[in-house]
């Protein structure tokens, strides 16, 4: 599948490498070329063979350059909730990407955008639940 990831932080980079290793066609976009260093070092995964592009994930021209018109799955994984939300809505409503998945730290915003048709997950909720479980409560 053709995958476009916006945000090359820890999660974005690891996801890009894992999907690439599984044979998907991966493009990753980030404002800061320095963050692409995360794609390089990898003791357990093969070298990243996808495309890393510098660009703004909420800029339509940058998204077109990254191949959004033929993307099957879109991930928005930058540090900013609103940036992720806007990127996903551009992908969904302007470019009709079949699946748009969005990280939203704020659980309330995550809930709202799920109802608006964006597949959103909140690490805050997930990690809190795991921590509680670890404590055994």
């Amino acid at each position, binding site marked *: 599948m053709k995958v476009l990831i916006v945000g090359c932080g820890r999660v974005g980079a690891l996801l890009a490498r894992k999907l690439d290793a599984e044979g998907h066609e991966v493009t990753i976009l980030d404002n800061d070329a320095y963050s692409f260093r995360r794609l390089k070092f990898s003791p357990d995964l093969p070298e990243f063979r996808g495309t890393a592009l510098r660009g703004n994930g*909420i800029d*339509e021209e940058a998204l077109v350059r990254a191949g959004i018109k033929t993307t099957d799955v879109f991930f928005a994984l930058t540090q900013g909730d609103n940036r992720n*939300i*806007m990127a996903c809505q551009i992908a969904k409503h302007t470019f009709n990407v079949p699946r748009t998945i969005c990280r939203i730290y*704020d659980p309330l915003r995550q809930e709202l955008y799920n109802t608006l048709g964006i597949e959103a997950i909140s690490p805050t909720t997930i990690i809190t639940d795991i921590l509680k479980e670890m404590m055994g409560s």
Partner: protein
Amino acid sequence: MYIIIIGGGRVGYYLTKTLLDEGHEVLIVEKNANYCETINNELGTVCIQGDGCETATLAEVGTERADMLVAVTGEDQDNLVACQLAKHKFNVQRTIARIRNPQNEVLFKKLGVDVTVSSTNVILEYIEEDVPTHPLTHLLAIEDSGEEVVEIRIPPGAKTIGKLLRHLDIPEGSKLALVISTSKRTHIPTKNTVIKEGDRIIAITTQKEEKALRAALTGDQ
């Protein structure tokens, strides 16, 4: 009216000042504590420190009874989310967003923001008006129909000068409303109107047909 303003920068500050003078109830939500303090010192207690994109903050400031929410932070994505929260969580009737990137206008409208204001576009329009050779000026956007009112000038040497309107290939969705000629006599165009140098033609068109209409009237591809 009760108006909530997201973002207490320069735009938010002067907007609030003016709206208060007009007798509206106004509240600003601003993240930065220093900005908040300045606003509260100068305009009275009208600013609350908080994130206007958080549901909790919006609930705290009584967004559900607001008549309007105006998002004027410097970040397009923050303005979008504030407006969408206001609309979908709090049923605010009217939302206005400031945008930096003029490209976002279409997207924001599609996503339910009622009005977008782009300072980039406003300045561009003034430049268009001031540059006499620029053949097309946007005068007004008709919000509901997606149409726009434009002015097209017939520049000297245009290939269409002396031709009858019915011989021009005017796009189907565009209508010519008025012709203001250099003799200052304004008339409603008919099929037999002759195009003259310096004519200003007021037309209703769509963003899609804008270029074709300009090409048809000026003969310039």
